[in-house]
């Protein structure tokens, strides 16, 4: 919405992606058009099989589209990947068990060739940011699931890419932990001004977090609605009881239902 004149950070035009499976081709994405601007918080919501994760993976060059164009910072996704344009947070924390929490956060920095001093400095800073100060020397299996997921977010933030891609990062956590991490994620987004792509299948989570909500539907995976959120940037948890919030949530639900009628 803001800076509509500047070039989008992520832009998909007529994007198609077909998987070749043993049961024949599966159309995971069909004719997807979307532009994500600098500083947007965009949620992708839809039932399983709607291609939301596939789209995020395509942005990250972990999947390769079979048609249309997709650019990240004006480059192909693969170029952007090699330029370390984004941090990616997966459904599970995926921490390496032989490394400490600090060692895990430091890993991308080691690979990208940061100096030892800068590795230490950045690791400490991002662990602080996700409120894991003092846990750096623990091993992943010594922490709770929520703390592990926070460590994986710290790892994605450590090298300070402008784009953060998150694939149902809080899906496996209980409601209370999820609320808390949602709140923290919003604060972090406000502080850093990053562009965030966020996959979820929770309507309240999508509405609470996003500036834009992309509703998708399956078979073939496609975008059925894009909702610009009128909610203010400052969002306390109880905003979820406000009339506006409930109206957007309703529209998302309608969109999801409409997608389902198409089967």
């Amino acid at each position, binding site marked *: 919405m803001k800076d509509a004149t500047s070039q989008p950070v992520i832009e998909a035009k007529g994007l198609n992606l077909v998987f070749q499976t043993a049961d024949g081709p599966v159309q995971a994405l069909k004719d997807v058009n979307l532009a994500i601007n600098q500083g947007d918080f965009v949620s992708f919501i839809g039932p399983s099989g709607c291609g939301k994760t596939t789209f995020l993976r395509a942005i*990250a*060059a*972990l999947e390769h589209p079979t048609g249309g164009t997709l650019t990240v910072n004006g480059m192909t996704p693969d170029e952007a*990947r*090699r*330029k*370390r344009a*984004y*941090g*990616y947070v*997966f*459904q*599970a924390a*995926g921490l*390496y*068990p*032989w490394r400490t929490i600090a060692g895990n956060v430091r*890993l*991308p920095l*080691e*690979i*990208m060739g940061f100096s030892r001093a800068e590795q230490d400095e950045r690791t400490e800073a991002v662990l602080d940011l996700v409120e894991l100060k003092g846990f750096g020397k623990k*091993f992943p*299996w010594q922490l709770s699931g929520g703390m592990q997921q926070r460590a994986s977010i710290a790892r994605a933030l450590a*090298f300070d890419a402008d784009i953060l891609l998150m694939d149902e990062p809080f899906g496996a956590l209980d409601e209370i932990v999820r609320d808390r991490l949602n709140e923290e994620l919003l604060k972090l987004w406000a502080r850093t001004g990053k562009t965030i792509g966020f996959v979820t299948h929770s309507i309240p989570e999508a509405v609470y977090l996003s500036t834009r909500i992309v509703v998708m539907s399956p078979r073939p995976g496609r975008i059925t609605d894009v909702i610009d959120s009128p909610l203010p940037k400052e969002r306390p948890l109880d905003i979820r009881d406000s009339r506006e919030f409930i109206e957007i949530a309703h529209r998302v639900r309608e969109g999801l239902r409409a997608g389902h009628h198409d089967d």
Partner: protein
Amino acid sequence: MTALWLALGFWLAAWALNVWLAGSRLSQTGPGRALVPLIFGATVLVLWEGLVRGLGVAPVILPAPSVIAAKIAVELPVLWQDFTQTILKGAIPGFLMGAGAAFLTAIAIDRSPFLQRGLLPVGNFVAALPIVGLAPILVMWFGFDWQSKAAVVVVMVFFPMLVNIVAGLQASERMQRDLMATWGASYWQALWKLRLPAAMPFIFNGLKIASTLALIGAIVAEFFGSPIYGMGFRISTEVGRLGLDMVWATIAVAALAGSVFYGLITLIERWVTFWHPSQRH
């Protein structure tokens, strides 16, 4: 007959002692836990001694432990020379070379699907060759000394190591590999920082299997030609001379060496793969 009754009495007493130890608070402590198997081991030896003496078993069938111990004490220089020849020169260098070669081959296979289809079947084929057929050929090729024994060990160790390393290199999870991709990591970075650490539990399984194979290979290979020392040579010649006490002494040394070798690998494994669920405490 008194020896037999004494031994049986010792057995019952030690049994009762172990039952009491296992139930007592002492079994929770380190020394207490070490004591139980030690008592059991001592009981086996005492029972063996008592049975052999009490029933008058011929030394050719089964010598008493005390006779074997006396033989070890007397023949220590010979046993040491055999040990040096077979273990230090034959088994360990062969083990290291075989494991190293398997490692390099596994990396090559990992890099190239062509080699994966070509080399694994060849490795499988070599592993299927019987050692009693292979050993004489390798003795012909590499001579009577330790070189041919090391070569037999290399052949025996190579395939189990290769299979384990290749399997280990696929052990990392897809998500962990995707993470490496999102950081723009090179093949060697991903190998070094992710895939090799993830492979370590497999590699150590291979090393443990290979350590026993190395010992067997080095000893058996000496049956097919060796200088006039070495553990395999000693066993085969002493059997011919009915010197069964010397055969047992050599077996004792082999068992001890094998246990130490295996224990050493287990120790290193515990240190390297401390993070693996099977090693966490």
